[in-house]
């Protein structure tokens, strides 16, 4: 709606699958203008309703694992990469991913999240996150890395106004408007053994897994560590070579 050249893609994802809702897989349906609405909007509305219906009806078993957001963002990045490959050479595109999610984020997807955030940073794609009820610290790190906007909605009724006010303007316009300031992100790492945030940790030099206290064997890559002296003293030269 904002500009004639804007392109849109919508994806839906839950614990089982994630699919593209608009533009749908098949040929776009041929619709007539039924009321005063702009044709393209009617097309989007119909396709989204149709595909969402399809996804919700096929889902039978109710397994409550958290939704696989990282994979969905990865698919979105592939889609953006294709658009970047096929665009007219002289054109600059600023692309954006807006994630609207109610589910929590899980440490189990930590690896995928990190890969996805660094890829987005490299492709300078901005990731915005609109958290409906739980605070998503991992996704917040993603917004911080790709300088997107993270917002946890206080009450759900105002969702439309939040979306219009905060997430609608493009990045170049955002610094002109007064928007919620990016809150400081806590980047501490979680140790592998107890999964809680630590200040000082021991990192295995081979596989970079983090432990909160010294252990002679690394649990992930099973390499045996040389027992250092009480302090990590430097290995002194044994004999001076003449």
């Amino acid at each position, binding site marked *: 709606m904002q500009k004639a050249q804007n392109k849109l893609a919508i994806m839906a994802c839950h614990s089982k699958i994630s699919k593209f809702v608009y533009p749908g897989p098949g040929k776009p349906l041929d619709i007539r203008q039924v009321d005063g609405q702009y044709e393209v909007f009617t097309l989007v509305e119909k396709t989204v309703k149709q595909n969402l219906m399809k996804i919700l009806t096929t889902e039978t078993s109710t397994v409550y694992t958290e939704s*696989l957001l990282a994979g*969905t963002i990865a*698919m979105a990045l592939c889609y953006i990469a294709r658009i970047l490959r096929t665009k007219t050479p002289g054109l600059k595109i600023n692309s954006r991913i807006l994630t609207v999610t109610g589910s929590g984020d899980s440490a189990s997807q930590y690896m995928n999240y990190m890969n996805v955030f660094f890829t987005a940073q490299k492709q300078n794609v901005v990731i915005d996150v609109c958290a409906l009820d739980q605070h998503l610290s991992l996704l917040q790190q993603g917004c911080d890395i790709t300088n997107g906007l993270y917002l946890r909605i206080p009450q759900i009724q105002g969702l439309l106004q939040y979306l219009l006010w905060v997430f609608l303007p493009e990045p170049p316009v955002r610094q002109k408007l007064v928007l919620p300031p990016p809150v400081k992100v806590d980047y*501490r790492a979680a140790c592998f053994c107890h999964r809680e945030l630590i200040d000082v940790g021991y990192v295995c030099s081979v596989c*970079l897994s983090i432990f909160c206290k010294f252990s002679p064997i690394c649990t992930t890559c099973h390499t045996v*560590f040389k027992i250092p002296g009480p302090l990590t003293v*430097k290995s002194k030269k044994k004999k001076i070579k003449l």
Partner: protein
Amino acid sequence: MADDEDPKEYRWETGYEKTWEAIKEDDDGFLEASVAEIIQRAKRKRQQNKQVNSKLGMMRHLYVVLDCSDAMSAQDLKPTRLLCTLKILENFIEEFFDQNPISQMGIIIMHNKRAERICDLGGNFRKYIKTVNGLTKTALIGEPSLQNGLELALKSLKLLPSHASREILVIMGSLTTCDPSDINKTISMLKHEGVRCSVVGLAAEVHVCRQLANETGVDPPPAAVCLESSLIKMGFPHQMIVEGTEEPLTMCMCHVDSTEEGSKLTTGGYYCPQCYSKYCELPVECRSCGLTLVSAPHLARSYHHLFPAASYREIEFDNQSLNCFACQKIFSEADKQVYLCSNCQQYFCLDCDIFVHDILHTCPGCATNPTTFQMFQSQM
């Protein structure tokens, strides 16, 4: 030292067999199809040789020894050798720190028969980019001294703890070197200290450089096998936000002695968990307590070396699926091959295959498929 002139001596020579024979005209005389096919095969080939990923030592310490003698003002590399090298060095530095975020680098230049250390080991790559840009105006005088350069690098590499890999990269422009004493002694000392030297010769091949590389070089940078792996103590600083109290205006350690624009009193910043000295940028080695300060994403960035995405199998396309799973591109008869992921049985187009394995390092199919996800998670 017999010079083993094996036919395939230089790696980059192998790539160029007679490519002109590979182009064949298809039935109605167009080269279009066969050219596209060659491009695809080239892309695919680049994929292949990346599969084998050696276990890189995570903490790499590299000294770049740059020859700034008058030979570098030769114009065979446009505009001059020095400017061309500096430009490429800039990209190398960026890529180096991108690939291994928690390594350190130092720069030494050799001119006028002496070696001078421009900046010592450190982790902040922006500083290096600035110094490299500053080098464009150095005076190219005299002859380089390879030995002095190596000695200077060795002096500071010797102090490093055993688990860190030590490397020297020499960029040699001139054919002569003027060394105070016998260079072989330096080479044997380097070998003894396990310092790996590689040489980039801009002019003809200098025998001493080849010998230096052969003596001290092991194949890829020393894998964990010859380096005792050890647990490195690291600090994960975080923004100290004490509710209610206003952040004190403090000076950060990394700009404490420098006068350029960065050194203002700031409120934010990362505090070292051990000695609470403040830094405005990570990764950095704390100057007061020597603890390496790093943030979680830095470590995470190098995870993808350890858990690469599954490589895809190339199979003939007979419309198994309507479009590529990742980027929804409709498969047409133009792309002959389609790529199947063994874990999640999804089909991808060639471009997505390259994108996933080069940059993304996660297979979208596996990440959005709960079954493969569990199996993947147990591997963690």
